């Protein structure tokens, strides 16, 4: 474990694990509902990777917290105010285009963040990042391709993708809003300051979105409050009622 404040490290790990948990759950909502079978399978596989990564991040968070809780306890027994995911990821799926736009905006972030985390001073984080970065690289390849296909597609698909980008863009800034947890992680060499990822991120999404013939909104307004837990949207609570239902109704149930 890196030589850093445990509370801060826990917050960082919850941010990583809650991002993949909440997006993994949202994407899994498509299972059986996607427009074509191949996309259904692709979405389910993506969700599976994200949930697998969640087990690693929250498993390590539980180890750092060292209070007898497991990754499952963290996922299923916390309430909305304890979650540390980006607001972007808890928003309802919208249509297929909006789901893939969100996926792309997040995959692009992960595909830049995770390779940096492979150099973390915390060995467990470096190892999880090494595993997850391979999956993230595969995910961004697919979501970028789909965003281009739909953006530069028919008049209808283009219109929907531009609407999705307009709707989700105000949630992108939160990815790069650094706070004291980030400062502590950066100082200890655990994780890069997220603000330092912005330039590379803008270059990557700029290239893909221009190929998709989509226009990035001319505004840097950003909704915040997810990764620091201060203000989640009303959507998170609704998501949790479904995701946590079984453990809430039958405490301790296993299979």
């Amino acid at each position: 474990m890196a030589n850093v404040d445990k509370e801060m490290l826990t917050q960082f790990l919850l941010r990583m694990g809650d991002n993949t948990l909440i997006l993994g759950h949202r994407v899994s909502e498509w299972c059986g509902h996607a427009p074509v079978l191949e996309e259904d399978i692709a979405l389910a596989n993506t969700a599976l990777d994200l949930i697998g990564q969640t087990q690693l991040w929250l498993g390590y968070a539980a180890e750092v917290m060292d209070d007898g809780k497991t990754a499952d306890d963290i996922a299923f027994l916390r309430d909305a105010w304890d979650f540390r995911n980006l607001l972007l990821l808890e928003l309802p799926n919208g249509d297929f285009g909006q789901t893939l736009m969100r996926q792309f905006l997040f995959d692009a972030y992960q595909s830049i963040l995770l390779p940096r985390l492979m150099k973390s001073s915390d060995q467990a984080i470096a190892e999880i990042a090494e595993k997850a970065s391979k999956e993230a690289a595969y995910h961004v390849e697919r979501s970028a391709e789909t965003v281009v296909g739909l953006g530069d597609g028919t008049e209808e698909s283009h219109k929907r993708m531009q609407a999705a980008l307009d709707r989700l863009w105000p949630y992108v800034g939160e990815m790069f809003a650094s706070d004291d947890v980030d400062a502590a992680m950066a100082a200890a060499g655990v994780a890069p300051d997220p603000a330092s990822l912005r330039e590379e991120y803008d270059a990557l999404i700029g290239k893909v979105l221009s190929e998709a013939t989509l226009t990035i909104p001319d505004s840097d307004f950003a909704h915040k409050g997810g990764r620091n837990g201060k203000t989640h949207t009303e959507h998170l609570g609704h998501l949790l009622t479904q995701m946590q239902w079984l453990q809430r109704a039958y405490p301790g149930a296993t299979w």
Partner: protein
Amino acid sequence: MVSDREHITAEPTLPDVAQVWDWLHAVPDPEIPVISLTDLGIIRDVAYVDDTLIVTVTPTYSGCPATSIINLDIETALRGHGVEKLELRRKLSPAWTTDWMTQSGRDKLEAYGIAPPQPAGGPDKCPQCGSQHVEKMSQFGSTPCKAQWRCTACLEPFDYFKCI
């Protein structure tokens, strides 16, 4: 008499590591039973710490549901061969890569109708008819480790084992 008694109370001989590898070589992958766990390259180490056998396994994909079944299958097989003190360890780094798949594993996959992983990122030919005219249908398939492709010559769809 004394020497006989000593013989009886001596520690039972532990199977050697090469023997354990042989046993593991016979454990099939639960999702793709034509290849074994050793063909897949996910058994990273077999060693003893004192008299406990430590088998180190690396996951293919972090969310692969077969991971827990694989551990169960390893345990069942080795216990069946009389291994009593056994510990399974998960190792994330270095992360699994399809480069670790054995040549015999690749051959068996292809014979089964699954195109083996290629560094080029796609199958080099259709595993059914051998044609090089193939196209991607989806980057994902029936398990996390596969993608769906189609042969434009024989028109058959097929699974491609993703290269990571």
